[in-house]
C-alpha cells in the first residue's frame, strides 16, 4: 500500500526542478557533442556545456570573441556561426525551458559567466573551502574541483 503523502513529497523536487533539470545530485549535464565546439571552446578551459547558460548569453559571448574575458578568442566566421548555432540550440532555455538554473535571472539579465549565475553563486558560496579556491586558481576552472565535469558530472566531491 503506497503512502499518498510520501508520494506527494517525493513529487515536490520534481515539481521544483522540472523535467530534465541537469546536475541535481544524481543527474548528468548533457555533454558537449559538437566536435568543433569541443575543440575550439575547449582550448583554454573545459568546453562548458551549453545547458549552463541561456541563449542570449551564448549569443553575446559569440558576438564578442575578440575580447573574451580579457583575451582574443576570435574564430573565422564559418566556425563562429556553427558553434553559436550549436550553443543556442542546446541552451538552458531551449524550447522555452525554465529550469532551476534560470531562477532569479531576469529576462534582461545578460550574465556571461556561469560562475555569476544566481544558482552557481548559491551553490558555491558556503560549500567551497578557501583551499579549494586557491588550488583551482579560477572559478572558471570547473575541472579542478569537478574531475568529471566534461563528462557532465558535478556531484562528485
Amino acid at each position, binding site marked *: 500500500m503506497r503512502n499518498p503523502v510520501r508520494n506527494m513529497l517525493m513529487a515536490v523536487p520534481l515539481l521544483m526542478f522540472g523535467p530534465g533539470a541537469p546536475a541535481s545530485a544524481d543527474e548528468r549535464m548533457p555533454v558537449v557533442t559538437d566536435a568543433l565546439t569541443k575543440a575550439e571552446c575547449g*582550448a*583554454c*578551459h*573545459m568546453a562548458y556545456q551549453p545547458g549552463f547558460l541561456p541563449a542570449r548569453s551564448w549569443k553575446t559571448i559569440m558576438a564578442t570573441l*575578440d*575580447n573574451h574575458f*580579457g*583575451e*582574443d*578568442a*576570435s*574564430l573565422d566566421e564559418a566556425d563562429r556561426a556553427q558553434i553559436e548555432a550549436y550553443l543556442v540550440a542546446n541552451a538552458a532555455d531551449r524550447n522555452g525551458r525554465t529550469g532551476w538554473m534560470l531562477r532569479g535571472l531576469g529576462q534582461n539579465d545578460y550574465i556571461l559567466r556561469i560562475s555569476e549565475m544566481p544558482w552557481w553563486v548559491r551553490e558555491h558560496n558556503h560549500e567551497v573551502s578557501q583551499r579549494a579556491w586557491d588550488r*583551482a*586558481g*579560477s572559478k*572558471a*576552472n570547473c*575541472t*579542478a574541483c569537478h574531475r568529471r565535469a566534461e563528462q557532465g558530472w558535478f556531484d562528485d566531491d
Partner: protein
Amino acid sequence: MHENLRRLTLIGALAVLAGWPAAAGDTSARQLIAQFAAEAGTQPSAARGKALFMGTHTGGKPETPSCTTCHTRNLKAAGQTRAGKAIEPMAPSVNPARYTDSAKVAKWFRRNCKSVLGRECTAAEKADILAWLSSL
C-alpha cells in the same frame, strides 16, 4: 598468396600509422619560417624572436602583458591558460607536434599577438618568433 596479402595489409597499416602525425599537419616550422621571411623580405632572427616572446608589453590586454603569461619562461615545460588549463610545451624537441598545422599557427598568432601586443604580429615577427621557438 594469403601470406603476401597479409604482409601487404600489414605494410599498409604501418604506413598509415607512420604517416599519421605528418598527416595531422600540413607544414613544418622550417617551411613556415621560410614563408614568413619571404613575405617580410627579412632574415629571420632567433634573438629578436626571443626578445619579443620573453618581453613585457603594454599595447595589449592588461591580463596578458607577455607571451610568457601563459607559456612561461621555460618553453620545454607545460604552460597554463588563465583558466587553469595546461598548455603543452612549445619546444618541438619535447613536443614534435608543434608548428605543423598552418591554420593552427595562424589562428594562435592572430589571437595571442592581439591579446599581448594589441595588434597582429608582422610576418617578420612571426618568422623571428618561430626561428627561436623551433630551435628549442
